[in-house]
């Protein structure tokens, strides 16, 4: 087994892991919809979004080390993803709520990174164009479900409410992106402000209510970035890593 990477300093490696793990874990969650989506078009859409995220993850994890070792051989506590992205799919509305929260964040984050000239600018400039479609997809579905039937409205609201407490963690600064090296950093309070304005506008237009609860759980915000994860993440990893661990070096 490889040595799990447990970075202690905000190096480019730790930063790449945080962003790469977000993309990898959400990609896997979206992939779980294969064979289960409500209609064929959505099956394809969610798989395509998952593929975009997997592409980002491969680039980012390769900056941090060997992509396969990092994806398949790390233990739960070595993953640096947000707790939001590891949350189970739930019903379709909950998946869309997760997509709305995360794609809005990622679009803003990559937009800021793309305008600088740091290590992550080339990837961000490329991926931000793809993520704009993810965000559009999530927004259109939020509108359709929220302003749909009583049942879809209720489910969409439930999804937004249930995941709200995981959104605070997104605005905890990720080390290495503060522009300390003079490459133009992420302005986190501005990112949070833009995110809140953007997400609130969509939720209100969808005749839904912006959740009012705390944006952090009972534990300290930023726990995912420190390797602390929620209960379902271990089971997700077990499935994701099972093949590679059972058959080391297996290839198609």
């Amino acid at each position: 087994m490889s040595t799990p990477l447990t970075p202690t300093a905000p190096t480019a490696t730790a930063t790449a892991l945080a962003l790469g793990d977000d993309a990898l874990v959400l990609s896997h969650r979206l992939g779980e919809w294969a064979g289960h989506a409500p209609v064929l078009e959505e099956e394809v859409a969610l798989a395509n979004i998952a593929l975009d995220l997997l592409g980002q993850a491969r680039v980012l994890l390769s900056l941090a080390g060997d992509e396969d070792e990092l994806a398949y051989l790390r233990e739960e506590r070595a993953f640096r993803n947000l707790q939001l992205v590891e949350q189970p799919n739930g019903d379709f509305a909950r998946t869309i709520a997760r997509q709305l929260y995360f794609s809005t964040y990622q679009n803003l984050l990559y937009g800021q990174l793309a305008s600088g000239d740091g290590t992550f600018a080339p990837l961000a400039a490329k991926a931000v164009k793809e993520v704009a479609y993810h965000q559009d997809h999530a927004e259109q579905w939020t509108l359709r479900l929220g302003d749909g039937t009583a049942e879809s409205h209720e489910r969409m609201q439930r999804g937004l409410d249930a995941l709200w407490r995981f959104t605070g963690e997104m605005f905890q600064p990720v080390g290495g992106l503060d522009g300390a090296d003079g490459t133009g950093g992420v302005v986190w309070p501005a990112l949070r402000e833009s995110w809140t304005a953007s997400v609130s506008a969509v939720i209100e237009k969808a005749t839904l209510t912006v959740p009012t609860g705390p944006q952090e759980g009972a534990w300290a915000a930023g726990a995912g970035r420190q390797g602390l994860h929620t209960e379902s993440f271990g089971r997700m990893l077990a499935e994701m890593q099972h093949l590679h661990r059972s058959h080391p070096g297996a290839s198609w």
Partner: protein
Amino acid sequence: MVTTALEEELLALAGSVPDPELPVITLAELGVLRGLRVRGIGKVDVELTPTYTGCPAIETMTADIEQVLRERGMAEVSVRTVLSPAWSTDDISAEGRRKLAEFGIAPPRPHSVDGPGTGGPIPLTLSVRCPHCGSTDTELLSRFSSTACKALRRCVSCREPFDHFKEL
């Protein structure tokens, strides 16, 4: 970029490789070949950029380029993937667009059109022409189609569904 006659010839050869997923157009027409340099006798470096970050076709493209250049006598072919500057659908040539439409895929609109991914403020600007009957009265069925780079649309006039190479 290309300086010698040999490099020009090799670039043309690499550029003639068909796209693995859209075999009607070549890599040159798709605009994904970024550069080619001969480093010595039988040694050549090629720079390739992906359309989408996660595009699985990049591996096949790499293998196909290696093959045609080896067949031309280059023993050592190194294909490197570059991300920057990011590929855009504006990099597809006019000939490439024409071939896509002929194949039944509505080509991407140029980037002056607003939409997601273009920095424009309006999420959906509908004036994609049906590649079958030419009508501009078409509607979006899904933002993502058989591949990430395409959206699924339907023509309201002739009722045929079709793929649209969406703007990136």
